[in-house]
């Protein structure tokens, strides 16, 4: 076991941004922390990096209970390194940035040179060695920041949204680096993302965070809704744009719903007779490992997953009109 977190709460001005019962994170894995913006992912990473102490609760790191002893924290920080979402490089050359962790660890100078060169090679930035770090692009900065983090020879590397602000080419490079540092160097990797596809591609384990809490399943298609009863006594969710979806829930009033993308049915023929059916337009198609993800604009943006096998029979294209049906059992209240 790498980390064990018990009843961790982090609050700012009495507002809890993180409220976790129990989390166990395993050693040697690539773990994805998935969640929308404001879910508390960055706060959790900073706690795991020992940069932020929780308001209450216990953290265990490799059988050691963490306390606020500053000397001990500095030692622990040398085992865990965080790469921020928008990493900042020191105002000097790329070389000196990567050299920094080695220098403060008093690594002999001759050895440092070889190590920096090797790391630059790993992230594909060898030709930028003597370039001023502030002249690099977002993707290049991200890669140098990863190399600088690896120069700490950490047991754990924490990456905050490593691919959120980089182009596709850099994304592919960063994904390769993550796999390599985990498989070849055996470093545990914990990364945050709001991209389900990316997590399914990279992570051995996934933890879903929503509004500061761990959610049981991966919620997608999340909407806030109001449960109302119509004249006929039937209950339905009213979504902010006026869209109505039938429900058999006992609950009333304001709630939050998630429509499971695997349970939504899609049809190219009008099937208005079924309940909770709406017409929409395909605006995006993405290929995943086993499914094709179809994003439909049906007044609300709705993700639908179609198994790859059956997708072929559809002949769907972007801009096509489709009818989508959200069966009552596809909608979860949470």
């Amino acid at each position: 076991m790498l980390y064990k977190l018990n009843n961790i709460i982090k609050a700012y001005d009495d507002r809890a941004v993180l409220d976790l019962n129990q989390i166990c994170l395993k050693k040697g894995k690539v773990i994805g922390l998935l969640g929308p913006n404001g879910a508390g992912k960055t706060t959790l990473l900073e706690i795991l990096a020992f940069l932020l102490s929780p308001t209450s609760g216990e953290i265990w790191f490799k059988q050691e209970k963490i306390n606020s002893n500053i000397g001990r924290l500095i030692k622990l920080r040398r085992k865990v390194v965080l790469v921020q979402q928008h990493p900042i490089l020191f105002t000097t050359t790329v070389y000196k940035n990567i050299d920094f962790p080695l220098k403060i660890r008093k690594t002999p100078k001759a050895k440092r040179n070889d190590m920096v060169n090797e790391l630059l090679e790993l992230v594909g930035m060898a030709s930028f060695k003597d370039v001023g770090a502030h002249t690099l692009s977002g993707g290049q900065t991200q890669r140098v920041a990863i190399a600088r983090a690896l120069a700490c020879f950490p047991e754990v590397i924490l990456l905050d949204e490593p691919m959120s602000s980089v182009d596709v080419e850099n994304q592919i490079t960063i994904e390769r680096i993550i796999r390599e540092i985990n498989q070849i160097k055996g470093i545990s990797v914990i990364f945050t993302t709001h991209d389900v596809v990316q997590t399914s591609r990279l992570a051995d384990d996934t933890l879903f965070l929503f509004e500061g809490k761990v959610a049981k399943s991966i919620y997608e298609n999340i909407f806030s809704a109001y449960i109302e009863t119509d004249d006929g006594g039937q209950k339905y969710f009213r979504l902010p744009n006026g869209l109505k979806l039938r429900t058999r829930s006992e609950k009333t009033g304001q709630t939050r719903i998630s429509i499971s993308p695997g349970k939504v049915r899609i049809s190219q023929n009008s099937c208005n007779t079924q309940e909770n059916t709406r017409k929409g337009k395909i605006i995006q198609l993405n290929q995943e490992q086993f499914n094709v993800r179809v994003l439909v604009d049906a007044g609300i943006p709705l993700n639908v997953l179609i198994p790859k096998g059956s997708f072929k029979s559809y002949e769907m294209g972007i801009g096509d009109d489709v009818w989508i049906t959200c069966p009552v059992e596809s909608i979860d209240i949470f």
Partner: protein
Amino acid sequence: MNFLTDSFFSALLLIWTLDHNLIEIIGVSLKVSSISTFISALVGVPSGFLIAFSDFKGKRLVITILNTLLALPTVVVGLFVYAFISRKGIFGAYDLLYTQKAMIIGQMILIIPIVTTFTISAVSRIDDRYRKAALTLGANLRQTAWVIIREARFGIMAAVVLAFGRVIAEVGISMMLGGNAKGFTRTMTTAMALEYDKGEFVLSVALGIVLLSASFAVNIFCNYFQGKGRTSN
């Protein structure tokens, strides 16, 4: 008008021939101002850094007081220090009055608030991600502080240069605490005041040219550092 151009050309001649009297006065000015700036930087930069990075009760009050002290009139400092170091003062026994040491003490009181305040603002402008990056890369508190000071170096240098510009051009403290003794405490500004009193304008104008050039150089340095700070952050 003739008088001004005559004085100006005679002054240029004085500078050109490196007149002994002139060089001596410039030497005293530079020595006193450099020492007071150096010690003020040693006190003001760490104080500014600590104030910016620590959270304590009354922090805002301290900053407000420092800001007020930025506008401290030199004659007030002169009077205040005089009260302590004159024969009747509590430090009277040290015989500090009318020495370069007295001038240095007065000038330090004048510019420590300048160095501190501008260090606070230079350090506060530094992105908090630098602190977090240094800590997560394994730096201890001293190394983290060094990273931040390094990032704020141009702002801090500008603060020190600005402080030097303030003391080299001040007259109140030098006059009241130094006493304008030839060869010991006569600085460019006090010499100019004296020459003016005597109606001898040539040396005054020559010193004025040197002083203006010094101010110009200080401003060029200041602009350079501030510009560098802007482009690199």
